[in-house]
């Protein structure tokens, strides 16, 4: 069955596909995160939150052929969840990696992260879970890569921009802005008005710029 719908993941838990029970990944996750096993998760291996899930591709999957590709495409077509693909990139499966990356990231637009073995996979999942939890608790400040919306004063930048007009340095830029207020207004000022603030030559330069 192709089950790809969102499921309810209790806060701070991970819901794992029954098929991983007893595996190395599961054993390493237990104790670090609250892991629940469920049947019928279909294509998904682990649900980290109501919106994020993981598909795990083993070294064996990679070597065995294209079956895993069909699985990824089916998931992508059927699900609106954010899918993170974790792939076991070993010396043996390394040669397939760039092809998989092209498919997953460039064609399917999903996230792909390589690990060397199941141990590393579990460690990575733990980190991903911790960021999912922080996102749900709206603790966005914890992510150093998320842009914080902060209003910045435009004054220094406006002054900088005006100084790019030939013949205008800091002093003249300040004079012009005090007189005309904005770049928009400055652009729509007649040469006569400009001459009253700066000299004739510079007024001409500004006007033609």
């Amino acid at each position, binding site marked *: 069955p192709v089950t790809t719908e969102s499921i309810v993941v209790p806060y701070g838990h991970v819901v794992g596909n029954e098929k991983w029970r007893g595996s190395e990944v599961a054993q390493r996750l237990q104790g670090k995160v609250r892991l629940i096993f469920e049947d019928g998760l279909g294509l998904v291996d682990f649900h980290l939150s109501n919106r994020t899930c993981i598909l795990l591709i083993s070294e064996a999957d990679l070597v065995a052929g294209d079956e895993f590709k069909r699985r990824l495409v089916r998931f992508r077509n059927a699900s609106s969840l954010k899918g993170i693909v974790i792939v076991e990139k070993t010396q043996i499966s390394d040669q397939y990696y760039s092809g998989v*990356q092209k498919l997953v990231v460039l064609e399917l637009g999903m996230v792909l*992260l390589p*690990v060397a073995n199941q141990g590393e996979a579990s460690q990575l999942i733990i980190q991903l879970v911790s*960021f999912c939890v922080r996102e749900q608790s709206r603790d966005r400040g914890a992510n150093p890569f998320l842009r914080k919306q902060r209003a910045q004063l435009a004054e*220094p930048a406006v002054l900088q921009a005006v100084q790019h007009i030939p013949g205008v340095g800091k002093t003249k830029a300040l004079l012009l802005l005090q007189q005309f207020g904005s770049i928009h207004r400055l652009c729509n000022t007649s040469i006569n008005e400009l001459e009253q603030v700066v000299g004739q030559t510079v007024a001409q330069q500004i006007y033609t710029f």
Partner: protein
Amino acid sequence: DHSPSPCILADTREISSGPAVLSCLRAVHGLRVQVCSLGSSDYIVSNRLAVDRVLQSELQSPGNRNKLSQRLRHLQGIFERICVIVETDRVRPGETSRLFQQTQFYDGVLSALVQAGIRILFSSCQEETAALLKDLALLELRKDAAIQVPTEPEGHQRDILNFYLSIPNLSYGAALNLCHSFGSITAVANSSVPVLAAGARLSRPQAEELHRFLRHQFDLQLLPQALPAKGK
């Protein structure tokens, strides 16, 4: 009219830090590569996508995280899409290749990037990085986001470009588009938000920000006093 090979803008720093990437892009993939002083990112692949090339070792050291996160947050203000290419460090002659250990810190950085919606690609060498950049550029070309204006303005146009480049959160590509789509700065200043968005190939919020900036009423009182001398 679509030019067959898309154009990539590369930052001048890449001449020294990624020479094989640049030569590969040109020689192997036949792309138009314009080296310019981007400052913000290592590569600009389309009107909306910036790419930063990061060495794997840089992601592993906590000392670098601040610098990287500042850089990427800055990029998020300028570009709709950001991609990081994580490149395996080169093994210098005489150095035995150390087994890469995926630390908890490294996993944390990757998780944070994923959650921030930053695309991540992995590359084993500069040549592969070039191939990935080419793939990204072709993808963006297919989605009609490629940079398709002349990338080397001259003379007066050069001065106008520098004026546009001084506008905060405006990308190099958008500045080139402004040069190309509008006859003068006055034409830009008098344009509505939708006209700016179409002419500069900007998203609606970005065009609004540009529109606001051009009409911003300057207030001397709000200028920070005694700006520290730069470069000292």
